């Protein structure tokens, strides 16, 4: 479903020198599978997620990224979203003045329009929103407030999953979704994520720690270091990392 | 806390009465034989000054052209300042100790003048120099290394001594009086003079261009980090005279210099005019830090006397990645009209302005900065702290301008005003002009008074009211004080305390 071949990337942001941050990533995520990307800070995990979502300034210098056979890198961010790419942000952005519901409905309808589907009716939208909010045990008032403004770290993460459940994407990229969550919230959020697991969806779970993977069981685990995948394996790889640490593995990979 | 409030108001009244001689310790007169230009300002005056300085013909031409233009110009009236019309014909445009231009070495300088500077805390004999400025002794004792400061001492219209010249010359640094530089380095002077502040820039700068007397010339060669702080100490002494100094600092590629400037004048019941021009040029990768502690005689409590300080200071970040930083502590002068500015021409250049302006008694200050963003990714930062006490008025006036080519420009401005007592005024007049969508400009300003709650809190813990005020004011100006070279920071802090003495109960 998602195919990355020798993907290299450079970060060019205004006011900072260009920096190489991915040094040849090759990865295939078949439909129905959940893959975890683990790695120490600065290994390029977030870069990978931004690159796949199309954040301006993150530029692939060589290699390719295909989603459902289509060249992902050639698409605008909103076109990728319409194809079903959803990035749960590590740091969700605050947008003052735009209430959550207004925003999600605008996004949903834009995606639908782009796919040639009819817009969702207001009652249907409300019904769906209410059900999902309930499932994530969110205070309904939260959905009337401006997007992420004044939300706690945990509330923001929960709201990301709310949006994911509303938009029903095909490829879900979870960037450090567990940070800022307490144990109960982690469980609720993971249940939400797991509900979306299906044979025609794929998922990339980016995390520093093993604990999220206790709740969202990966099919494969990849270890990213210095912009390169240095090890891949089953769920047991994550457990090994937890007990031995990254250093041993990185040293071993030489 | 009604009693606190009453104390403050009573204190304000005290302050108005209290701005007297004992608080301006620099107010003495040096008795020395003078040489004066005849009163008045004509072409002849300009020729007289030029001849006194034994200037080449091109310099005289330059002055005369400026004088011609000046006669057609009008004095600006847009500042929030009020003062009676200045009679430009009623002053001596040149005043110097007799034979000053003949001093060959420090040994020729009359004892009265050496004593004057010693009394001001500026020893001019190198072996006596522990520090450029006194008052920092305690701090210096604590510091392992004794910082050294080279001094150019300007007494009325002439430079009387310049210290550490030889040592600096060994590093390739030219540090001398402006008059000497015109004679010894005419090529450098001609190449840069008037390129930052054109001779017809504004009324006061043009006046200066015609009659400037002395000042300091600095050239730091490529890649040289100036081995010590450089400074100029300006002293106005003669009755009925003005001071019109000219300073030109050039930092060549990759060089660095930190320069300090101090000013004082005797207490006189007349108004003395001071119209200086300072030009800074920073070439590629160079950095200039320019600090001023301005303590001209502010006049008495009724507003009699005091220096009229009309100054044009501008720095040109001409090369890429150059940096100019202005730091000023303005406590003196009856009138201050002064906007040290940066032209950010080179890509990635940086301009900074840190200012503390204190007005008390009947003082009026209209001061601030201009940051002109011309190059790409240029950055500027403005921190201004105004303190108004007594019956004074204190205005911040600034311009931040982003031109269409200045992609990625950034500015942050913070202007805070503090009012002490209810008879003073605090004003903020910023101009912001942005013609780049990718530029980011932020401006914040606040006006508050010394908090009664904080004062009470400090007093409850045992501080005297004066101490409490000093503590709070120090907190208020902290961001800027920290930007001063250490030996100046101590003096500045002391100066603030003295300036505000008696402003509360």
């Amino acid at each position, binding site marked *: 479903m998602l195919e990355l071949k020798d993907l290299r990337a450079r970060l060019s942001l205004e006011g900072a020198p260009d920096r190489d941050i991915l040094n040849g990533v090759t990865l295939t995520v078949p439909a129905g599978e959940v893959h975890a990307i683990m790695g120490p800070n600065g290994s390029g995990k977030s870069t990978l997620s931004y690159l796949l979502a*199309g*954040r301006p300034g993150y530029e692939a210098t060589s290699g390719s990224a295909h989603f459902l056979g289509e060249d992902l890198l050639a698409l*605008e*961010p*909103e076109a*990728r*979203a*319409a194809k079903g790419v*959803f*990035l749960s*942000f590590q740091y*969700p*952005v*605050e*947008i*003052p*003045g*735009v209430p959550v519901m207004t*925003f*999600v409905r*605008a*996004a*949903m309808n*834009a995606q639908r329009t*782009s796919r040639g589907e009819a817009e969702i009716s207001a009652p249907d939208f409300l019904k769906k929103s209410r059900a999902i909010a309930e499932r994530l045990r969110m205070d309904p008032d939260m959905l009337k407030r*401006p997007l992420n403004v004044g939300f706690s770290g945990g509330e923001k993460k929960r709201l990301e999953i709310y*949006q994911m459940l509303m*938009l029903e994407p095909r490829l879900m990229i979870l960037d450090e979704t567990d940070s800022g969550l307490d144990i109960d919230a982690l469980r609720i959020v993971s249940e939400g994520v797991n509900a979306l697991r299906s044979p025609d969806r794929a998922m990339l779970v980016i995390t520093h720690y093993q604990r999220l993977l206790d709740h969202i069981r990966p099919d494969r685990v990849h270890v990213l270091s210095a912009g390169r995948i240095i090890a891949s394996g089953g769920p047991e790889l994550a457990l090994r990392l937890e007990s031995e640490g990254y250093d041993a593995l990185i040293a071993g990979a030489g | 806390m009604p009693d606190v409030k009453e104390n403050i108001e009573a204190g304000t009244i005290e302050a108005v009465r209290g701005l007297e001689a004992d608080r301006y310790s620099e107010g003495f007169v040096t008795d020395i034989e003078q040489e004066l230009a005849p009163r008045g300002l004509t072409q002849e005056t300009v020729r007289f000054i030029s001849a006194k300085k034994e200037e080449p013909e091109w310099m005289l031409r330059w002055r005369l052209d400026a004088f011609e233009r000046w006669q057609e110009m*009008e004095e600006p*009236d*847009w500042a929030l300042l009020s003062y009676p019309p200045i009679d430009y014909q009623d002053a001596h445009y040149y005043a110097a100790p007799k034979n000053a231009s003949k001093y060959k070495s420090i040994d020729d300088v009359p004892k009265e003048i050496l004593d004057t500077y010693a009394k001001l805390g500026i020893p001019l004999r190198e072996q006596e120099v522990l520090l450029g400025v006194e008052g920092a002794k305690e701090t210096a004792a604590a510091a392992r290394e004794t910082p050294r400061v080279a001094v150019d001492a300007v007494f009325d219209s002439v430079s009387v001594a310049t210290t550490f010249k030889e040592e600096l010359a060994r590093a390739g640094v030219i540090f001398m009086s402006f008059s000497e530089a015109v004679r010894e380095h005419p090529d450098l002077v001609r190449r840069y003079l008037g390129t930052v502040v054109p001779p017809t820039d504004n009324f006061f700068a043009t006046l200066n261009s015609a009659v400037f007397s002395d000042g300091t010339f600095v050239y730091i060669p490529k890649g040289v980090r100036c081995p010590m702080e450089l400074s100029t100490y300006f002293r106005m002494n003669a009755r009925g005279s003005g001071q019109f100094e000219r300073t030109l600092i050039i930092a060549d590629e990759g060089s660095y210099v930190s320069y300090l400037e101090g000013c004082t004048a005797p207490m006189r019941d007349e108004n003395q005019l001071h119209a200086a021009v300072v030009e800074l040029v920073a070439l590629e990768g160079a950095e200039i830090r320019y600090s001023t502690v301005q303590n001209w005689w502010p006049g008495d409590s009724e507003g009699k006397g005091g220096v009229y300080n009309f100054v044009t200071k501008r720095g040109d970040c001409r090369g890429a990645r150059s940096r100019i930083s202005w730091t000023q502590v303005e406590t003196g002068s009856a009138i201050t009209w002064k906007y040290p500015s940066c032209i950010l021409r080179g890509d990635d250049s940086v301009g900074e302005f840190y200012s503390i302006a204190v007005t008390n008694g009947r003082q009026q200050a209209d001061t601030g900065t201009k940051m002109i963003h011309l190059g790409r990714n240029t950055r500027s930062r403005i921190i201004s702290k105004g303190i108004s006490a007594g019956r004074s008025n204190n205005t911040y006036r600034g311009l931040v301008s982003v031109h*269409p080519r200045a992609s990625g420009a950034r500015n942050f401005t913070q202007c805070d*005003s503090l009012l*002490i*007592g*209810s008879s*003073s*005024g605090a*004003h*903020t*007049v*910023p*101009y*912001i*002009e*942005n*013609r*780049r*969508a*990718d*530029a*980011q*400009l932020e*401006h*914040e*300003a*606040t*006006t*508050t*008074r010394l908090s009664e709650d904080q004062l009470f809190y400090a007093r409850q813990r045992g501080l005297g009211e004066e101490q409490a005020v000093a503590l709070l004011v120090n907190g208020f100006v902290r961001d800027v004080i920290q930007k001063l070279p250490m030996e100046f920071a101590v003096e500045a802090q002391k100066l603030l305390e003295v300036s505000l003495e008696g402003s509360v109960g």
Partner: protein
Amino acid sequence: MSSSLSASAPLLDARSSGLLARLEAMDPSPSRLRAREAFARTGLPHRRIEGWRWSDVRAALSRPPAGGATDAPATPLAGGSGLAFGEGGLTAGELAVSSWTRGVSENEARVPDVGALGWLAEALALDGADITLAPGAQPLALVFSGREGDRFVHLRIRVPQGVEAQVAESHLSGGGFSSVRVDYVLEAGASLHRSVFLAGGAECVQAAVASVRLAPGARFHQTFLSLGAGLSRLETALTHEGDGSEAVLDGAYLLGEGRRTDVVTRVDHLGVGASTRQLVRGAVKSGGRGAFQGRFHVARHAQKTDARMQHHALLLEEGAEVNAKPELEIYADDVQCAHGATTGALDEAALFYMRQRGLPLAQARALLTLSFIASALESAPSGPREALLGEAERWLTGA
């Protein structure tokens, strides 16, 4: 601050002299004569006069018209009853509850300085009205339009003690030169919401000048939306004459190619414990130019003043220009005064976030921009609020 030209008698340009000559032909009242003298001090203002740096009326009027004048470029704000002024003066009028007379009677009280274009409107007003809003009066709608020539109108609106009222002004010139002056007088405890909508043709010079006098305890809320004009100036001179009055001076501007707006306010605090809140937001596209000039003046005895000024602008594209001069002039010490001003581009992180969720770039920009300016329109009362937000949204989406 006095201008460099006001000290001596200026040389008036031909257009200014022509305007003054017109008054000679009339039989001027003392008020008009006073206004004429005030105008003659500068004539038509230009950029060298302090306060007119970013709205050079003289230059704008010296450009020959290119024949692009249009009829009213937008729909006026609605009201329960109202007056409409066009090229020939009053064109329609019906005021149900309020009392009014055509023309403005002699000004007995101290007259606030409303700037050169305000004086010009008073001196040369072709038409006007003196209105007293009665208790229970319907929202009053005032519409000013026209497509050529010069149009000057002078109104006075009184809000008597304790009365709560609403006025909606629409300034919709398609061309020519217009200046409308409205003097608002709020008596003790009175309350007025003033909504102002300005949209002018690319060639027109349009000024909406108001003086506002607040008696003790009066409340004045102003909300404007300006879509600019060839040159558009919204000038408000507000005085807290007594204690405890309250002013809100909000609004937004949205400017496209060839449109300019200069939003100018001067607030004088003379009484104790009065408050002023000002939030102005703007967004400008390529070829547009916005300016904000705000000034709070707090007099020596106006202790406990609480005054906050905010101006925030977005430059949506290269080629846009925004200028600001947020001024404080404070002579009292026991006050809380602050201002903040920012200019910049839309937040890139927010834009990406929205696009990641599937919003097309244009829609994301429009939504972000609308949410950016909306908070400056929310102080308007229900009715005008929705109308102004609707106009803003139409402008942003190009609908």
